């Protein structure tokens, strides 16, 4: 397999690739011009995370948008959810966030939002990609070109106000929580300490909050990447620890002993908190744990499942008028009252509010959740192999029910499941397995990896 393969991907999340030979300014400009042609003349919000390629791509995308006749509102370094909300709140025609989210620092991407500040749906996306390939962009003449303006302070204020309205801020502040944050030197570096200290009255231990420095750890907040946070928790005795990805949409949560909650547990605790106030439908992706179903059942609420990817979850949430949703598999919490987007700030606020409300620590709250054993793994993607793997997997387990919404998910009558799919963002195949029994999970995982490895 050549190393050049798939270092650029144009698909579900917009356009994403390794900066340099693959994600070039010319490509970013052309894509932005296609986007601006699609939205038409009007305001488009442009923000970014702290990646070193951010300023370069900001210039390229601004060029493309101006050419398409769009007025560019540059909001600078901001979390992706903040950008999405600002698009919707200001009546802009769309928005672009320059971020490769949890991908490594050599990657960058254009995340595209419609006028509601949401990811484009499946059909909008198809239309935009067609437009991009057709190359029939608006090339405005001298007097039709757009303008550039900057708006750096109001978007974050608006975001925080929306989140804070949904929780009991006073009771959180009264607790004066001892909290920790690892912002990976990303878009949350400045805003998240402000949010936790000034808005929510935490005593804060902060690391990796310098937006001028490179990511000090792997961008994706995982148990393997958050050793520094663990160390900080143990050293300072903080009650709860938070970790963000570079664009602040994903959230990981650490217990006082420094170990991480499973992302599904974090989502389950937020689902519980939301449904206890406003019962309603829940939407999570296929790879999210069944713990969500159990928690929803406590409140007599239904869970619907979507393909993996924020855009897919949001599409289903809109269809089912869900009150809460997310992706347990990757730490995304979507609470429509704030906005239809993954938002780590909503997650932080709800968890602190739940702790203040119950008087329990994060460890105790998590211990009340039903226990599932879930493991996942990833292998390099090879063209043409996924279909064969899906066939072989289904044939190997004729006793399970098959769901082909996104790759193949096999579900057994006892609730155990196995899910194999191709990543939307990286050249990887992902395999996840879950059951109520640790040993059964291991057996299923072994069977799955045997098929992937063969």
């Amino acid at each position, binding site marked *: 397999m050549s190393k050049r393969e798939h270092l650029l991907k144009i698909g579900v999340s917009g356009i994403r690739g390794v900066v340099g030979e693959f994600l070039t300014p010319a490509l970013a400009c052309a894509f932005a011009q296609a986007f601006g042609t699609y939205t038409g003349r009007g305001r488009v919000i442009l923000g970014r995370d702290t990646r070193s390629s951010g300023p370069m791509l900001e210039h390229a995308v601004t060029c493309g948008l101006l050419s398409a006749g769009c007025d560019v509102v540059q909001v600078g370094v901001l979390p992706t959810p903040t950008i999405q909300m600002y698009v919707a709140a200001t009546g802009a025609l769309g928005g672009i966030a320059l971020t490769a989210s949890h991908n490594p620092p050599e990657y960058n991407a254009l995340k595209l939002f419609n006028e509601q500040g949401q990811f484009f749906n499946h059909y909008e996306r198809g239309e935009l990609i067609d437009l991009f390939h057709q190359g029939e962009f608006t090339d405005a003449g*001298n007097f039709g070109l757009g303008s550039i303006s900057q708006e750096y302070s109001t978007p974050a204020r608006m975001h925080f106000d929306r989140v804070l309205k949904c929780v009991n801020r006073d009771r959180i502040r009264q607790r004066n929580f001892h909290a920790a944050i690892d912002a990976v030197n990303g878009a949350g570096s400045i805003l998240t300490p402000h949010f936790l200290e000034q808005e929510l009255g935490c005593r804060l231990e902060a690391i990796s909050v310098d937006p001028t420095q490179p990511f000090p750890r792997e961008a994706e907040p995982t148990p393997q990447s958050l050793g520094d946070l663990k160390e900080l928790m143990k050293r300072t005795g903080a009650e709860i620890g938070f970790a963000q990805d570079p664009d602040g949409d994903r959230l990981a949560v650490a217990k006082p002993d420094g170990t991480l909650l499973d992302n599904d547990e974090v989502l389950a605790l937020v689902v519980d908190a939301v449904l206890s106030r406003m019962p309603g439908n829940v939407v999570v992706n296929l790879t999210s744990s069944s713990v969500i179903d159990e928690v929803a059942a406590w409140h007599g609420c239904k869970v619907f499942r979507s393909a993996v990817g924020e855009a897919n979850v949001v599409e289903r949430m809109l269809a089912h008028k869900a009150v809460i949703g997310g992706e347990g598999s990757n730490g995304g919490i979507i609470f429509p009252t704030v906005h239809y987007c993954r938002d780590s700030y909503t997650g932080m606020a709800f968890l602190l509010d739940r702790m203040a409300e119950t008087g329990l620590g994060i460890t105790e709250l998590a211990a009340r959740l039903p226990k599932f054993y879930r493991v996942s793994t990833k292998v390099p993607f090879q063209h043409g192999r996924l279909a064969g793997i899906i066939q072989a997997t289904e044939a190997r387990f004729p006793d399970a029910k098959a769901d082909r919404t996104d790759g193949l998910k096999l579900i057994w009558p006892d609730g155990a499941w196995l899910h194999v799919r191709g990543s939307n963002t990286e050249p990887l195949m992902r395999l996840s397995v879950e059951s109520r029994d640790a040993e059964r999970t291991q057996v299923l995982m072994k069977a799955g990896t045997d098929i992937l490895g063969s």
Partner: protein
Amino acid sequence: MASLRISQVGVRGVVGRGGITASHALDFGAAFATFLATDGPVVIARDPRASGLMLREGLVAALLAAGRDVIDLGIASTPVIQHTIRQRQAAGGVSISASHNAAEWNALKFFGPLGTYLTTAEADELLDIYHLRRFYAAPWNKLGRVEMDSSAIDRYLDELSEVFHFDRLRQFRVVVDCSNGTSSRILRRLNERFGFSLILINATMDGRFAHEPSTSARVVGLQLAPLVQPLSADAGFLFDADSDRVAFATELGEPASEELILPMLADYLLPRSEGKIVLTNISTTSLNEEVAGWHGGKVVRVPVGRNAAIDALNAHRPEQIALAGEGTGAVMMPQFRFVYDGIATMLTLLEKCAAQQQPLSQLVAAMPGYSMLKGEVPLSRHKIPQLLELLATSFGEVSINRQDGLRVDLPSGRWGQNAWFHVRVSQTEPFVRVIAEARGTAPRDLFDEVMETTRAHA
């Protein structure tokens, strides 16, 4: 109609489809970064055209992606870019300006590490890289950074103040038509910092042009010339959008031919300069030869275009050259390291007034009268060699110059004194240009005959 022209001069066109677009800014930016031979930043600036921002964004993105730091001067003239390249020891520079073209045009022009236009060979190499499209891309963690440099204009003025005696020049009362271009910002600073009393008109820089920013006697006559006498001014000067060219009106409010600027400066500089060569292209007035003759100087003529001028400059030792210029009001002087600079040209003309203690109208009157006729004929490319051959052989014993199209110098007699004509293909528009000139009255018969022959081959 498609307006795009990609040539040794750079890329130029009406902004939008069929003309200059975002992709040209990105691809030429990438090609230029790939082309540059030395390390160092790239200096850029733009004129106030509305499309300047869009092209800047694309250009900056491409340069950063190639690992080049960018020094952005904002809205500044082409000469200021060229000065800054040397001062900041940059690897090169790019000017975003369609200079004398109308507001809806724009262009990219490229400069090497000495701040001069590219030579013909360099310009060819840049075009080859552009067409080959194998651009250098820096690794993701080695991208460039942008620096805004707002003091470049002040440093440029400091340099001018060392060459000129500002205390002798600020006495002049001068009206300046900035053509809504970059000279507005520079001359405002000249007033503020050095006590000049230049009266600026068309000095807003919002991307709208009060008139075509062309340095010709015709445009000088539109708004500037009628203001000179009512304002009791000593002169009126007009700049193009990027301030590398200038035109003027005398204190009597009479527009002067743009062709006069080079010979008037030659008259002033030749006696004061070690160099005796006046370098110009083959389309400019023969008055240059007559004036050079007064001072023991010599005119060297080269093909039209800035690359050719740079090639010729490089082929001479700097001390051999007194000055170089076009008939458009663009003049380069050695004390400014051979940068076409309209503002330095204006200051030199004022210095000449001061030195000779004569008003501009008398300096103009001291120049022997030459009359030039210009025309253009739509192009039919395959007949051009045939046309040029016919013209070269139809006028008997003549002096022939085939460096760029055909220039024919005729013996004095039937067609007048010092009569000549030049037929060439325009680099920027789809025309054959015809020029005829003679000392004294215009060579109407000669011009008509050449035009007729040319039209017959259109």
